[in-house]
């Protein structure tokens, strides 16, 4: 076949550009991986991307390899699936949903973690974290970033003003909420327009009322959502959700409140509410959208224990998975499993490491340090966010499944039976497909 003359020119230009970009990137050095390029795809963008790139450049300095970072944002599942189909997979992907790890593993897109990577992982992390990354017993995911979801954030100024003190039990928690309401302060700010806020509430309560074993069974749908343990959890939940005076603006207003607004309600210029149940990343919102300081005005206490339940923690996290099986990939994973990588990001804030050997001193403030100690201290007592483990159609879809049912439950907390039936019906449907 004959090509028109300009084809050659076009090819030359394209090659020139790609060569030039290659040589640009190869600013690395003379480490053992010099000349290798590793591609990482992660959902992080903005500040988080910059922070993660600091971690990656620490790896580059160490090994001489070049790491290309691609941010896929919320579309990460779609991006990965497309790239798997197009056979241009990155070396490493960072995945936030266990369901996606399973899905990718089932379609043979993932490589199991190599023995030398597992060795590093076992050295630094509690067994529970390794299990979170397993699919049917095969380890695929290495958790790099963790989220502690069993926290209640409170405005210390409001607490001091009203004389409230951090509660330890659910009864104390309700008592303090009532006391605050008596003083004319709205106790709980709930950003219930975002369904996951309510699933976090439910998970924390269920883990405490039903215990870790039942929690796991429910997350695998081995017991139905009509189980008495679910009723008990919903009834405990209704003790708070059923009292409009305990919720900022009442249940109806909470359903109109987005998560960021619920944070501003507590830590903004004119605080309207005193407390907010949410994960450690509330701290990031506090720093970005309010003038309050984490560790000063914005402080936390662990989600209260219910009926003498032990220290149980709902966690979530981002796992690194290998999509290629070569030395550079393994080296990067080993680095991500090491305390050094965790400390690199911990110093920058907005980060928790599941790695028990990451020095607590690395965290920037007392509150974050406390949250990290709380997380590591729980050891194997951590349980992964239930709504992230169930099929996404049930656990993470706007207007359906857990999100919608719990929102409806907040609107009508008397309807425990109806909520349970709807949860079970939606769950059955989601597991069916």
């Amino acid at each position: 076949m004959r090509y028109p003359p300009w084809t050659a020119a076009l090819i030359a230009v394209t090659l020139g550009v790609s060569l030039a970009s290659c040589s640009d990137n190869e600013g690395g050095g003379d480490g053992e991986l010099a000349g290798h390029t590793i591609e990482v795809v992660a959902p992080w963008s903005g500040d988080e991307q910059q922070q993660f790139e600091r971690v990656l450049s620490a790896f580059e300095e160490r090994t001489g390899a070049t790491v290309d970072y691609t941010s896929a944002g919320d579309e990460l599942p779609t991006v990965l699936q497309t790239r798997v189909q197009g056979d241009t997979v990155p070396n490493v992907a960072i995945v936030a949903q266990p369901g996606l790890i399973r899905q990718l593993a089932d379609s043979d897109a993932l490589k199991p973690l190599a023995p030398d990577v597992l060795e590093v992982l076992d050295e630094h992390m509690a067994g529970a974290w390794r299990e979170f990354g397993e699919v049917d017993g095969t380890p695929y995911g290495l958790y790099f970033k963790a989220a502690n979801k069993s926290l209640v954030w409170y405005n210390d100024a409001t607490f001091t003003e009203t004389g409230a003190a951090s509660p330890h039990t659910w009864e104390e928690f309700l008592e303090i909420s009532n006391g605050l309401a008596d003083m004319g302060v709205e106790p709980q700010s709930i950003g219930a327009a975002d369904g996951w806020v309510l699933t976090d509430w439910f998970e924390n309560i269920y883990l405490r009322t039903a215990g870790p074993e039942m929690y796991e069974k429910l997350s695998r749908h081995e017991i139905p959502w009509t189980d008495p343990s679910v009723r008990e959890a919903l009834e405990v939940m209704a003790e708070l959700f059923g009292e409009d005076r305990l919720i900022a603006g009442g249940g109806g207003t909470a359903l109109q409140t987005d998560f960021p607004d619920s944070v501003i309600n507590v830590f903004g210029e004119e605080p309207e509410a005193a407390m907010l149940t949410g994960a450690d990343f509330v701290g990031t919102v506090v720093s970005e959208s309010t003038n309050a300081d984490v560790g000063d005005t914005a402080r936390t206490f662990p989600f209260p224990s219910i009926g003498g339940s032990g220290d149980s923690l709902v966690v979530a996290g981002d796992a690194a998975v290998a999509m290629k099986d070569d030395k550079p990939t393994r080296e990067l994973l080993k680095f991500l499993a090491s305390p050094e990588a965790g400390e690199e990001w911990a110093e920058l804030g907005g980060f928790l490491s599941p790695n028990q050997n990451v020095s607590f001193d690395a965290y920037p403030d007392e509150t974050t340090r406390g949250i990290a100690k709380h997380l590591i201290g729980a050891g194997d007592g951590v349980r992964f966010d239930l709504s992230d483990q169930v099929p996404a159609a049930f656990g993470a879809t706007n207007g359906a499944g857990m999100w919608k049912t719990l929102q409806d439950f907040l609107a009508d907390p008397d309807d425990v039976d109806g909520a349970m039936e709807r949860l079970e019906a939606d769950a059955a449907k989601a597991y069916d497909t």
Partner: protein
Amino acid sequence: MKFRLPSPSRTAGDPTSARGPQDGARFGEPSRTALLFLLPAALLFAVFLVYPTIYSFVRSFFDASGDEFVGLGNYVSMFTDARTLTAIRNTGIWVLVAPALVTGLGLVFAVLTERIRWATAFRLLLFMPMAISLFASGIIFRLVYEEDPERGIVNAAVVSVHDMFTSSAEYPEALPRDDDTLEVTEGGYTTSATYEQGDVVELPLVGFKPGDLPSQAEAAAVPEPAGNELRGTVWLDASFGGAENRIDPGENGMPRVTVEAVRDGQVVATTSAGNDGRFTLPDLGAGEYRLRLAESDFEAPFRGLTWLGSSLITPVIISSWIWIMTGFAITFIAAGLSAIPREALEAARVDGATEWQVFRKVTVPLLGPLLLVVFVTLMINVLKIFDLVFVIAPGSVQAEANVIALQMWQVSFGAGGNQGLGSALVVLLLLLVLPIMLFNIRRFRRERS
């Protein structure tokens, strides 16, 4: 900007020239050269339109993974799923209401602005929203309709109008300390026990910020009993580390709270509390009385409507779409208006027609074809409405505000990722657009012949 106008522009000129002889001759047998020039367009058309359409159609018969043939399974689950049915119903409401309203408003505004001095400037202003992306407008309207009057301008307006006519309560949302002394009843908070002359009644309230008490409030005090008077105090029983149902240091009375003495359901005497919360009901006469704190002092402030709640959400989103699209309709219709033969209007006026009759009997019929174009274009636009619903509806009411296009996106690319079902929804959308398209094509044909 120039708009191609179907019939009015023709009627404007010589009516016989509308059917020019060259019309048919221009489109003869396509030559090879013509085909060659058409090729790139045809190729793009095939790649970006024909292939995806056929693929979506085929894909709709397969399951989520794309491996298993499920026949009409996706269509069955589509029409048995409550969410999808809501989406279909809402899309129906949109199609019925929105295009007609926008066309109507566009017509009214176009006719009204025709004779004013700054018509162009005015129309430009109304056209402005079209220059903003739907997504950005959505964010604006999300804020406009925010429930909190501090943030949402609509509720801020509603509240200030409301407050102009009714004064707000002095102690909104203050509540009795517990059921033992005061109960929440019709008309206010009523004591559970009865009292008689000479008694002193302590009435504790909570749920109000001590810092928000009126400045003249003083430390709460209990009055001395007096023979023929029923006395007592109303105070805010909320203080740092204070005991319940007891007046602690630092707890203040609640001035001006209305206290009523009730006997057999009848209010027999009324007084109000002083700065230290004390009140006195003199000369009641012998007998048992209940005390009631009048409801009006504690009514929650009016906070406006929950615009973005499940009941109002679709009308609210439609209203914002109207705001955006009216400019579009005005521009088209105004252009059409300017092409209407003045003589026809003048003739009607000379014949003694009123302005309303001119509008109804002359302007509208002459604009008819154009109005139809605008209406049909808007209808297609409405069927694919997505971004406004996505942005304006809070997560908790997205199910109630759902429309087919949004449901399709959520099902195929949202957390679920079922592109089989998503394709089925797309096919449904296509089937809904098809009749409108066919209608459009037929109309074009008719006009040409």
